[in-house]
């Protein structure tokens, strides 16, 4: 990954936005971007600019997500939806190997073939999602052992991030230092500007291939001064962000407050339904199930998304360790903001707010941290 200092930037008029998609197609990428589906903005294959959520705005709060169509024909005036890169790079259900009996012997052969996927270009990712991707890189391919399923999908991604000029109702990226503007890890960063009947995009290259693609686009008017202007838009997004996590000394405070009474309160409210962990772009837990063929001649091992909120998650010899919902909530919160640092050197939270929006009873992790910090 290249460090993404603004080396090369250009201005793309709205009417020429299709040329960006065309340039990706010419390079053989399958484009995945935001579309409106099932009352939400989700990540799915995109062929043309008309499929993007033109004019759609999302309104999010604790346990609530609503879409609203406006007359302003913006392409990216929404924040994060229920989906993230995770579903493409870390499939929710994945066969990881197949084993077969050889004749009468019990010897097994293992087929660990990992299928090659298409080259994906993602458009419309948010800075917090790039931060989450960086964390997943550490988890899946950054250590001694690499996850082959993730590795093969991670390769050759073309990442187009859209900087946020508006904060969602549950966002707190500014306090986690992951947004609203992407600092690194992208090929192209887009900032959308819509004002006084002017509709254009500032595009910044963050990698060699990103910058070489920019050169092919139909360049708009002079860009001077406008890069400065978009700075004001990021500042506005930070100012309107209603939620925050005070991160100073948080790792140690949480480690010392394991018996804080707030865990009893939140344990009474929490449904242990696992929604928060499954929408989280950094949660990476999985379980494996072995499925035999009826005769027992062969068996598949299937990996599925799992969650620390399920009873089976902590099942060891003798039974599950985390019987109470309180202990499961505490495990999750403390992992995200404390033990994750021991494990990977960063917070496990990027401030995207998905766990707050998609909690069916609206539990707010930022409020819980305020209470536990005391």
């Amino acid at each position, binding site marked *: 990954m290249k460090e993404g200092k603004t080396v090369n930037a250009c201005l793309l008029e709205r009417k020429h936005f299709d040329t960006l998609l065309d340039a990706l197609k010419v390079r053989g990428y399958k484009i995945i971007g935001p579309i409106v589906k099932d*009352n939400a903005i989700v990540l799915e294959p995109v062929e043309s600019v008309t499929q993007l959520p033109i004019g759609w705005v999302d309104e999010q709060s604790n346990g609530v*997500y609503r879409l609203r169509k406006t007359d302003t024909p913006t392409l990216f005036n929404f924040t994060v939806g229920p989906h993230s890169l995770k579903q493409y790079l870390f499939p929710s259900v994945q066969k990881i190997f197949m084993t077969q009996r050889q004749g009468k012997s019990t010897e097994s052969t293992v087929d660990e073939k990992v299928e090659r996927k298409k080259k994906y270009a993602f458009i419309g990712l948010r800075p917090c999602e790039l931060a989450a991707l960086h964390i997943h890189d550490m988890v899946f391919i950054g250590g001694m052992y690499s996850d082959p399923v993730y590795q093969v999908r991670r390769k050759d991604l073309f990442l187009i991030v859209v900087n946020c000029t508006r904060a969602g109702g549950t966002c707190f990226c500014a306090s986690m230092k992951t947004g609203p503007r992407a600092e690194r890890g992208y090929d192209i960063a887009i900032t959308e500007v819509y004002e006084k009947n002017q509709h254009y995009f500032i595009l910044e290259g963050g990698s060699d291939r990103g910058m070489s693609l920019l050169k092919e686009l139909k360049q708009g008017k002079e860009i001077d001064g406008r890069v400065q202007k978009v700075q004001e838009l990021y500042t506005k997004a930070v100012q309107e962000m209603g939620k925050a996590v005070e991160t100073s000394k948080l790792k140690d405070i949480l480690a010392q407050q394991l018996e804080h009474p707030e865990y009893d309160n939140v344990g*009474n409210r929490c*449904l242990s339904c*696992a929604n928060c962990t499954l929408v989280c772009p950094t949660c990476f837990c999985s379980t494996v199930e072995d499925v035999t063929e009826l*005769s027992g001649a062969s068996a598949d091992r299937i990996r599925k998304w799992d969650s620390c909120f399920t*009873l089976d998650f902590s099942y060891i010899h003798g039974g599950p360790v985390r019987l109470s*919902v309180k202990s499961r909530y505490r495990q999750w919160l403390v992992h995200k903001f404390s033990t994750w640092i021991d494990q990977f050197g960063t917070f496990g939270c990027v401030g995207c707010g998905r766990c707050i929006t998609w909690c*069916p009873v609206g539990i707010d992790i930022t409020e819980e941290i305020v209470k536990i910090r005391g």
Partner: protein
Amino acid sequence: MAKSKKQRKPKLAVWKFASCDGCQLSLLDCEDELLGVAKHIEIANFAEASRAISKGPYDISLVEGSITTPHDAERIHQVRRQSKILITIGACATAGGIQALRNFKDAKQFVSMVYANPKYIETLNKSTPIADHVFVDFELRGCPINKYHLLEVINAYLNGRKPNIPTYAVCVECKRRFVPCVAVTQAIPCLGPVTQAGCNALCPSYNRGCFGCYGPKETPNTSALSSYLLAQGRSREELVHLFRNFNAYSEAFRKESEAHEK
């Protein structure tokens, strides 16, 4: 178990109590897989499929339906005595079924309203699950059960392994299928967060809330869900209806509906 099947195929029996037959139909519904299953087990007693019935004892008994009559309360003990492994299939057998709605009222009144000659009707006041009467080795939830679960349990038995039957919430299945939460996007009252998975999130994938066909999940927090729905403006009456479906008499759902009835 893998060895014994070489000598003799395990014998399977299917029993019916108070039920609609939908669950045992799931076995017949395994059209592509049924011949494969029959290669490994002898379907020895399955009246819905064949009049040819072999005598017990049986290695596996699948029991459908709830206990609603004095006669059935006796019969289930006979079934248990003939069965090495007894597996209940469906909401009736595991929770009393939709007919357990009678448990919240006086069944005698219903009998007198429905039948011209109530004296011929011999019924118990409550519809109860099989596990209230005999020891049950495994319970398959659902209204109806998922046929792939049935195959999985038979498969696990044949191969001497634990069946992969989840106990977590329906929400996990929604998320694995990338179905955006209908409760969050549309404020649809959905039992998914307190209901055991198994249907592969069928209703939410068709833009409906979960009806709770698979009964309560492990550690279901029904009261927290109710509090939230009440705060959203739902009435207590709605909550009673929400929890009183096919698994109305399961402990968690029963207690929750009763809490809102007064």
